[in-house]
């Protein structure tokens, strides 16, 4: 049974392992993408700069600021969903030393 099963099933097992590995990797990449707000914050700073230099007016600033806030909120939601730390919201002094 053993050898025959392996030979018979191997063409199928191979791709399945392969797929699972790829999905794990995709999952990790997607997770990072969803929970990293560095580039969104950079967009906000760039937008600020454009307003200061007069490239855009107040209305345009507010419109794009609204979009960026939406993105920041989405990241915060994903971080909460994955149990990661988030900024903003009520805090208190941590009771144990382990918590930041």
């Amino acid at each position, binding site marked *: 049974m053993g050898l025959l099963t392996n030979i018979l099933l191997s063409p199928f097992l191979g791709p399945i392992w392969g797929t699972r590995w790829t999905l794990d990797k995709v999952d990790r990449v997607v997770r990072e993408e969803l929970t990293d707000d560095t580039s969104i914050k950079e967009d906000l700073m760039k937008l600020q*700069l454009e307003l200061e230099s007069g490239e855009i007016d107040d209305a345009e600033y507010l419109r794009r*600021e609204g979009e960026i*806030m939406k993105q*920041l909120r989405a990241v915060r939601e994903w971080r909460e969903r994955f149990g990661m730390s988030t*900024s903003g*919201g*009520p805090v*208190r*002094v941590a*009771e144990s030393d382990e918590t930041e």
Partner: protein
Amino acid sequence: MSPAESAAAAAEANPVEGKYVYCIIRNDRSREFGEIGIGSGARVYTVNHNDLAAVVSDTPIVIYDPTRENVLAHEFVNETVMREFTLIPMSFGTVFRSENDVLALLKSTYQAFTDVLDKMQDKIEFGLKILWDRDKVVAAIERDNDEIRRLKDEITRNAASSTYFARMQLGRLVEAAMEEASNRYVTDIHEQLKDVSAASRSNKVIGDRMILNAAFLVDRKDEKAFDERVKAISLQYEDLLTFKYTGPWPPYNFVNIKLKLEKAT
């Protein structure tokens, strides 16, 4: 429910029970700073513990988006407080559930706050962002760099026969010269500001025109000298660089206390 909706719902359910904390100062009696707080002019006052005080305003328990309006309100309070006090700024959006939670922060972090307040006594921060005009810098480089000028002349003279390689070579030389110029400007500017500042910190540049994004910690007694020096440097580089000079700020970039805070649910 989206965060905005849940925030609005939370605001309705428990109005103004939280405390928004702007900064920590040294003051042994309570103080009022006027109705200038975040969220349409909330009353700003202090929560005191011994000789320390947290500058706060009442707030619903919400997450504040870092919109320009909110960030400006946060900064305006700190600017107002800064006219009279040395302060430790809190991160934007820091909300505690109750006055007792704020007191717990002052008590548990008393020593660290005291040490940093001593160190920051009479110190203020200035921001300096420097942008360059690529075209002008390239023109200056072509004027001053013999090798680049020669290669460029050659390419223009023999437009038809000049090779792809020669153009690549020119591009590479200009890129390298620009990076060298950028480093030279930044080093020179830091050097010129050294004796009028106590410390400096370079942050990541934003966008492709910025070559410097720095914060300088300045003693109040050197404020005028620092100011004049920045103006002199900006005149010196008038043709090539744009200076964005801001402040005085609280020492946002020079205070680094890791507060042991956790989510209050």
